[in-house]
């Protein structure tokens, strides 16, 4: 038995309870310590699980309720490298965020630390669970902690609006997941993922299975904020405290996609195998439209956290494309993107946190040139933005190159150029903001950008050196990840195991341990011509976007007015969809679910 698997959940939850109980009697200067220690210990255990799971998939049945004759009775945790890696990433980001927020939270910091640990417990449980209903429970636990964290600044209306929109839309997403779970349970009498998959295998998909899949997929897509389910995300991320945004952007958004991938490959893959292209095409369309919409919306923002929030949407779209390819390279690419993006975006959000503390605002135009006196932060911010493009061996490169490889293998050569545009435009938006804030380029006024209600952080002494150090560390790790020898082979290997349903069933239900050979060779693969071309193209687009954002007044008036006339309706239309009203968002979720379900009902049936 691997009782170790219980700790990534038990430790943060017990730690949260401990902190809630003892905080009053802890001396003021020691109050930050326990939460950081608990988060660091959780990360360490998740990492040990990750390393051990590379040899053999680890299984733990709570209370010793082992399966009998291939029939799951109890609730089990199953750790393979991708799930364990997700848990380890979440732990690392929470630890970093807690270190950053040393003295950052002046209002009820106890609740903040407790919520962060509960949030971590929820994410770890979701990543490790092998039981569908159990996944739902972790999903909700993580959700409730996240709603409270998003609305942490309850004295301001912006955070309240963001948290309410977040809570309402994501609750409805969770209901849809629960509906899907109930339908699958009704059909198969099982809640264990391997067991459900085994019962469904061998029967062609019928209406009920398709409806269940559409509901589960929509629920997860709401959490990960894919078009048209994405509208809540910018409201919530723009107003959440910066250290919370780190965990939202780096782990929570990705956890939804992880859930979708997990249920597809353990439960639905055999039923949908004859029509897998229907799943692939629909998800690719959703992914790429999300990537493009997120990038354009990011370009239209002046509130830095809201801008970054839209780039998160764009990134999640790209990651979904990797998963949607339904092959090993694509999935490995998605996993690598999640990893490097998590660190880079963490650095960028924390940099916003420093700006908010220094200048009491994160409005790009108001901060014009004021960042000049923070050269280290400015450099880290710009380098972090460049890391998101995918230049050879830098930042998200590995993820992008694997994803492109997967797309080309499958005859989807149209995909990489579109991803290149999305990555270029969303990075260009960040670079524009960096140039305006830290170098003072471009005009101080720009009517194109959406104004937002200001934030009013209380004045407080904070430890700037520590905060900037955390930013630099996050960015540095994110930048270096693509140049780690052996990482590519290991993630490809992990992705193949993640997709191997038979091995998963044998291991979980029958205890047949397949050990996997010595770890992959520690080599750094040469960048292919296509991926170098991709990197250069995306860089060119990013620079062009940034320069356009800063200096478009210098374009000759005739061309400019023509451009304004043609593009203005589209831009206004796109902006007007993002109303900030929960009811509208729920309407879009309903429409999106109906369309997904309808399309799949027509295309997934029959052999």
């Amino acid at each position, binding site marked *: 038995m691997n009782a170790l698997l219980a700790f990534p959940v038990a430790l943060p939850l017990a730690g949260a309870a401990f902190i809630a109980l003892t905080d009053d009697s802890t001396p003021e200067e020691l109050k930050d310590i326990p939460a950081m220690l608990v988060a660091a210990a959780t990360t360490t255990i998740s990492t040990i699980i990750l390393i051990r799971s590379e040899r053999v998939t680890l299984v733990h049945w709570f209370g010793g309720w082992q399966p009998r004759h291939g029939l799951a009775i109890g609730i089990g945790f199953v750790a393979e490298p991708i799930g364990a890696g997700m848990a380890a990433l979440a732990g690392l980001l929470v630890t970093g965020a807690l270190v950053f927020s040393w003295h950052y939270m002046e209002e009820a910091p106890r609740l903040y630390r407790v919520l962060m640990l509960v949030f971590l417990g929820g994410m770890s449980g979701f990543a490790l669970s092998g039981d569908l*209903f159990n996944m739902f*429970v972790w999903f*909700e636990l993580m*959700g*409730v902690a996240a*709603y*409270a964290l998003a*609305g942490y600044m*309850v*004295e*301001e*209306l*912006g955070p*309240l*609006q*963001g*948290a*309410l929109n977040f*809570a*309402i839309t994501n*609750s*409805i997403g*969770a*209901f849809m997941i*629960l*509906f899907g779970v*109930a*339908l699958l*349970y*009704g059909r198969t009498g099982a*809640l264990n993922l391997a067991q459900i998959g085994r019962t469904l295998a061998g029967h062609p998909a019928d209406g009920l299975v398709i409806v269940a899949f559409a509901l589960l997929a929509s629920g997860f897509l709401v959490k990960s904020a894919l078009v048209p389910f994405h509208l809540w995300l910018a*409201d919530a991320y*723009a*107003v959440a405290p910066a250290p919370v945004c780190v965990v939202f952007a780096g782990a929570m958004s990705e956890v939804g996609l992880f859930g979708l991938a997990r249920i597809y490959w353990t439960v639905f893959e055999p039923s949908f195998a004859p029509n897998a292209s229907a799943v692939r095409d629909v998800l690719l369309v959703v992914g790429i439209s999300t990537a493009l919409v997120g990038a354009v919306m990011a370009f*239209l923002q002046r509130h830095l956290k809201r801008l970054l929030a839209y780039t998160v949407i764009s990134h999640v779209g790209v990651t979904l494309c990797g998963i949607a390819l339904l092959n090993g390279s694509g999935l490995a690419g998605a996993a690598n993107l999640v990893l490097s993006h998590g660190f880079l975006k963490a650095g960028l959000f924390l940099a916003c946190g420093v700006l908010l503390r220094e200048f009491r605002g994160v409005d790009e135009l108001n901060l014009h040139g004021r960042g000049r006196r923070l050269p280290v932060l400015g450099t880290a911010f710009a380098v972090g933005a460049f890391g998101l493009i995918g230049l050879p061996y830098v930042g998200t490169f590995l993820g992008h190159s694997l994803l492109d490889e997967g797309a080309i293998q499958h005859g989807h050569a149209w995909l990489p150029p579109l991803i290149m545009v999305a990555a270029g435009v969303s990075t260009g938006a960040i670079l524009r903001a960096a140039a305006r804030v830290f170098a003072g380029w471009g005009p101080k006024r720009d009517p194109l950008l*959406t104004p*937002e*209600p200001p934030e009013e952080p209380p004045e407080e002494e904070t430890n700037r050196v520590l905060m900037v150090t955390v930013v630099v560390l996050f960015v540095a790790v994110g930048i270096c990840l693509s140049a780690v020898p052996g990482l590519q082979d290991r993630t490809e290997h992990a992705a193949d195991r993640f997709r191997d349903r038979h091995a998963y069933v044998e291991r979980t239900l029958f205890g047949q341990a397949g050990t996997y050979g010595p770890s992959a060779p520690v080599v750094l693969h040469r960048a292919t011509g296509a991926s170098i071309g991709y990197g250069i193209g995306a860089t060119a687009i990013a620079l062009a976007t940034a320069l356009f954002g800063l200096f478009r007044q210098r374009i000759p008036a005739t061309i400019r007015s023509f451009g304004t006339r043609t593009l203005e309706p589209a831009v206004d239309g796109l*902006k*007007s969809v*993002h*109303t*900030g*009203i*929960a*009811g*509208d968002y*729920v*309407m879009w979720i*309903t429409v999106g679910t109906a369309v997904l379900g309808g399309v799949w009902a027509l295309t997934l049936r029959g052999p």
Partner: protein
Amino acid sequence: MTYLPYAVAAWLFLVGLYGVVSSRNLIHLALCLSVMQSATYVLLLAVGYKNKATAPIFRGIPVGHPAVDPVVQALTLTDIVVSVTVVALILALALDVHKQGHTVDPDHIAGMSG
């Protein structure tokens, strides 16, 4: 086998959804979410129900006598706990909105959009 409970579940879900979409009051909206969640209780219980079966308490009934599925009741109870947490949180946020902005209309909280 009757389809009535499934129809009731679908009806509750949709009527709650309509309420959420059209709501102009955060407290009303929270209760509409509750209605939607009730749909999941009905669905879960309907999935585990058997005609002419007893409750899943096996003391004093003959071996082999049919009983309804005990798992779905556990799921429903868990679901109720989750629902209480979420509704409580939304109501707490609604209270703060009223305190800060003197409104409970979800369309006019902070005017953040675009």
